[in-house]
C-alpha cells in the first residue's frame, strides 16, 4: 500500500481542465493541418471531429477504470497494473507504460528543437539546447505536482494569443475550399485518422496524475471540458488552414501555422513567426514537464527505494540522450509515426482491454470468496 497523497500537493478540480487542454495541444498544432489532410484533403475536418469525439469515449473508459480502482487503493495506472497482474508482470507493464510516456516526452522535446533549428537558429546543437530545456524542467518538477499543474494553467493563458491570431486568417479565407463535402473514401479517411490521433494523444496521462486532483467526482466534468476545448481549437485551426491555403500549397508547407504567422504584420514587428515560436515554448512545456514528472513518480512507485528527485535526474538525462540520438528531420518524422502507432493501440485497444479485465478480475474474486466462504 502506498502512502496517501498529502493534500498540500493536490490541486483543485478545475485545474484538471487546464492540464488536459494544455497537454493535448502540443507541438502537433503547428503541423497537423498538413499530415491530417494528406489523404483526406478538404474532408480532414470530419476526421478531426470524429477522432476528437472518440477521445471523449476513451476518457470515459479511463475515468471508469480509475473510479473502479478507487476502492482498492490509489487510482492510477501503475497501481492497477500491480494489483491486476501481480508484481512481475505488473512491473513489466509499468515499465512499458513508462517507456511510452518517455517517447511522448522525447518526441515533444525533439520536435520543438527541430522547429528551432529550421526557423530560428540553424546551427543550434540539439545536445546543448536539450540540456538547457531539461534544466528548466528539472527546476519546475522539483516543485512537485503543484508547480507542474501551474505551468499547465499558465500555458493555457499564454496559448490564447497564439490561437486567437487565427482571426487574421479569416480575411483571406476561402470557405469554398471546403467543398465538395465528403468526397473521399473511408480508406483514405482512415489513413488520416491515424494522423489525427497524433494530435490528440497526451490526455492518457490522466492515468498517472488523477490521484493528485482533489474531489475526483467534481473533476470529471473538467476533464471532458478540457477535451472539448482542445477539439474545438484543433477544429478551428484546421478549418482556417484548409480555407487559407489551397490543397496543393498546404501539402508543401511543413508547418502551415508558422507560414501563416509569417504573414502577420504589426507596426513594430515585421513578422510574427519568431515571436510565436518562442511563446510556443510554453505550449510544449506542460507536456514535457508532465511526462518527466509522471515517469519519475512511476519509477519511485515501481522501485520504492529510489527517491523521486534522483529518478527525475535520471529521466532528464535520458531525455537529453534520446533527443540527441534523433539526428535529423526524417528520424523525427519516424519517431513521431512510431509514437502515433503505439498511442493508437494504447488508447483504443489496451484501455478497453484493461477495463474488461478489471471487471473479470472483480467477478473472479467475488466467486472465489463465495467459493471459499
Amino acid at each position, binding site marked *: 500500500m502506498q502512502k496517501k497523497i498529502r493534500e498540500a500537493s493536490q490541486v483543485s478540480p478545475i485545474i484538471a481542465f487546464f492540464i488536459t487542454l494544455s497537454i493535448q495541444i502540443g507541438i502537433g498544432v503547428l503541423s497537423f493541418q498538413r499530415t491530417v489532410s494528406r489523404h483526406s484533403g478538404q474532408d480532414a475536418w470530419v476526421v478531426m471531429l470524429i477522432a476528437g469525439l472518440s477521445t471523449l469515449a476513451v476518457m470515459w473508459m479511463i475515468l471508469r477504470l480509475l473510479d473502479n480502482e478507487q476502492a482498492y487503493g490509489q487510482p492510477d495506472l501503475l497501481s492497477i497494473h500491480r494489483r491486476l497482474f501481480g508484481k512481475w508482470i505488473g512491473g513489466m507493464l509499468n515499465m512499458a507504460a513508462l517507456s511510452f510516456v518517455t517517447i511522448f516526452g522525447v518526441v515533444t522535446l525533439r520536435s520543438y528543437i527541430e522547429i528551432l533549428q529550421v526557423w530560428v537558429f540553424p546551427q543550434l546543437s540539439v545536445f546543448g539546447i536539450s540540456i538547457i530545456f531539461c534544466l528548466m524542467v528539472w527546476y519546475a518538477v522539483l516543485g512537485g505536482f503543484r508547480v507542474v499543474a501551474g505551468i499547465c*494553467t499558465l500555458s493555457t493563458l499564454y496559448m490564447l494569443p497564439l490561437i486567437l491570431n487565427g482571426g487574421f486568417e479569416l480575411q483571406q479565407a476561402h470557405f469554398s475550399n471546403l467543398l465538395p463535402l465528403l468526397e473521399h473514401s473511408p480508406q483514405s479517411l482512415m489513413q488520416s485518422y491515424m494522423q489525427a490521433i497524433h494530435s490528440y494523444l497526451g490526455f492518457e496521462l490522466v492515468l498517472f496524475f488523477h490521484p493528485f486532483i482533489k474531489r475526483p467526482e467534481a473533476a470529471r466534468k473538467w476533464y471532458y471540458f478540457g477535451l472539448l476545448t482542445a477539439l474545438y481549437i484543433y477544429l478551428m485551426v484546421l478549418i482556417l488552414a484548409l480555407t487559407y491555403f489551397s490543397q496543393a500549397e498546404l501539402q508543401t508547407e511543413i508547418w502551415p501555422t508558422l507560414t501563416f504567422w509569417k504573414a502577420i504584420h504589426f507596426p513594430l514587428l515585421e513578422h510574427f513567426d519568431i515571436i510565436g515560436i518562442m511563446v510556443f515554448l510554453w505550449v510544449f512545456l506542460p507536456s514535457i514537464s508532465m511526462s518527466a514528472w509522471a515517469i519519475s513518480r512511476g519509477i519511485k512507485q515501481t522501485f520504492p527505494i529510489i527517491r523521486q528527485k534522483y529518478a527525475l535526474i535520471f529521466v532528464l538525462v535520458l531525455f537529453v540522450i534520446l533527443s540527441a540520438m534523433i539526428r535529423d528531420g526524417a528520424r523525427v518524422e519516424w519517431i513521431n509515426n512510431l509514437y502515433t502507432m503505439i498511442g493508437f493501440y494504447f488508447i483504443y485497444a489496451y484501455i478497453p482491454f484493461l477495463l474488461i479485465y478489471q471487471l473479470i478480475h472483480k467477478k473472479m474474486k467475488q466467486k472465489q470468496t463465495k467459493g471459499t466462504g
Partner: protein
Amino acid sequence: MFWKKKRLQETDPNEKSPKTVKDLIAKLKDYPDFTHFEHRGKYLNCWISFFQSLVNIEFVHRDVFPFLYRDDVRNLNDIQERLPIEKIIRTRDISVIQTKLLEGYIVIQIKKSQAECLVVPSIRVKGRQVEPPEVETSIIGPKESFVESVDTNINLVRKRIPIPQLAMQEFRVGKVSNTRVSLLYLKGIANMENVNTVRQRIEDLEVTSLLDCNMLSQLISDNNNSPFPQFIDTERPDRTAASIYEGKIAVFVDGSPSALILPTTIVEFFGAFDDYFLTWHLASTYRLLRLFAVAISVLAASLYVAVLTYHYQLVPKDLLGTLITSRSSVPFDPIMEALVLEGMIEFLREAGARLPTKVGQTLGVTGGIVIGTASVQAGLTSNVLLIIIAVSALAAFTTPNYRMGTTIRFIRFPFILSAEILGLLGIILCFTFLVCHLLKLTSLGRPYIEPVYPLRVTDWKDAYFRLPYNIQTTRPMFLRPGEAARANRKRNIEKRGKKWTDIDE
C-alpha cells in the same frame, strides 16, 4: 577543524552578570549618565538609582520625589501605596531589576545592600513626530506615517480600528537587543493558522539583535533565496488598517518606521493605496499601467539586445533606417552598449540615493542629461537605446513598493545576459525560469501569485484591476478569513432600494 576552535568558545551570559543589586550598581556607577544617590528626608531615607538618559527626568522631579517627603511615607510599602503610578514592581529578582533599569525605570531601595527594590516606571518617549509619508506618498488621502516608536504606531492603527476584537501579541526578539515585536490582527477574521505560523516563526528566531522590520521580514520569510520580497512593508497606517480589516496580520518592530503586512501576493506590491481613493476606472487603468511598466522595464533592454544581435528580420523596413543611422557610429555589440548604459543609470540611481537630497537632485538632472547626450555624441551608445534604457528605468520606479522596485531592476540583468546568449529564446527561457520560481514561492505558506494560480476568479476583483466597492463584498479568498463576507449583500440591496426601476421614476 582549525577555524572552529575560537568560534565555539561561547561564553555563558549568566556567568558575568551580577548576582546582587549591589554588584549591579557597582558596575554601573562609573557611567556618567547613571545617577545613584541617597535621599535623606525627615521621615524616610532611601537610595535612588536611574539612568538620566533613559528616564523622563521632569516627571521624576515633579511626580515621584515629592511623595518621598510626605510624612506618611516611611518605608517601601508606603511608597508603593501612596505613589499614584500604575505598574510599580516590588521585587528581589536581579534580572528584572537590571532590564527595567535599562528600559528607563527608577529603582528605590531603603538600604544600599538591601535586595528588595521598588521599580517605578518613568520611561522617556522621545522620537519623531508623526509626519507625512515619504516613501509611499499619496496626493489625496491620509497624510500620516509610522514613526520609530511602536506604541505610537499601534496607536495610529488602533484609533482606526476601535473594536475589542483587534488582538495584539507581543514578543521580545534578539538575545541582546530584546526588541519589542508586536503582532496585530482581527480576532474571528484573521485566519488563526496564519497567526500561529507567524507567531511560531517569530518565537523560533535566533538572533542577537533586531533593528528593523525589513530585517524581520527576511528572517521569517518562506524562501530566503528568492530576490522577491514575500511580505509587504508599508509606512502608511491607513493601508495597515485596511489590511487588518481584510484579515491580514500586521507586525511592528520597535524602532522601525514601517509595518509588515502578511501574507501577501505579488500583485499587491503593484497596488498603491491611492487606488482606493480614485474611481474604479482610473484605479484599474493605473494598476494595469504599472504592470505594463514592469514588463517594459524587465524586457525592453533585453529585447533590443536580442533583436539586434540575432533577429534583425523582425524589425520593420521603415524602422530599420532609423536604427542603422543611430547605430552606425557605435563600435560595440548591442550587449556592450546596453550594459554600459544600464551601468550608468544604476550608478546615477545609487549615487542619488546615497547623497544628501540637495546634492542628489542636481546630480540627477545634470548627470542624466550630460552622461546621456555625451555618450551618444561620443559614439558609445545609440540614441534609440538611450531612450529604451531611460524608459525602462523610469518604468521601474512606478512600482509603489520600494523593495519590489529594486527586485524588478535587478532581474533585468539576467534577461539582458541571456538575450545575448540565445536571443529571444534566451529571453523566453529566462522568463520561464522566473515563472517557475514564482509558482514555487509562498508567503506564509499561501501561494504567491494567487489569483492566477491557483485560479480564483473571485479574487480578481481587487488584483490587476480594482472593481467598484459594491462588488467588493467578500474578503480575499486566499487569506481564508474567518468571516468571508464584508457586508451583507442582501441587506445592502434592501437599504438602497432597486437601482433602476424605469425611465423618469
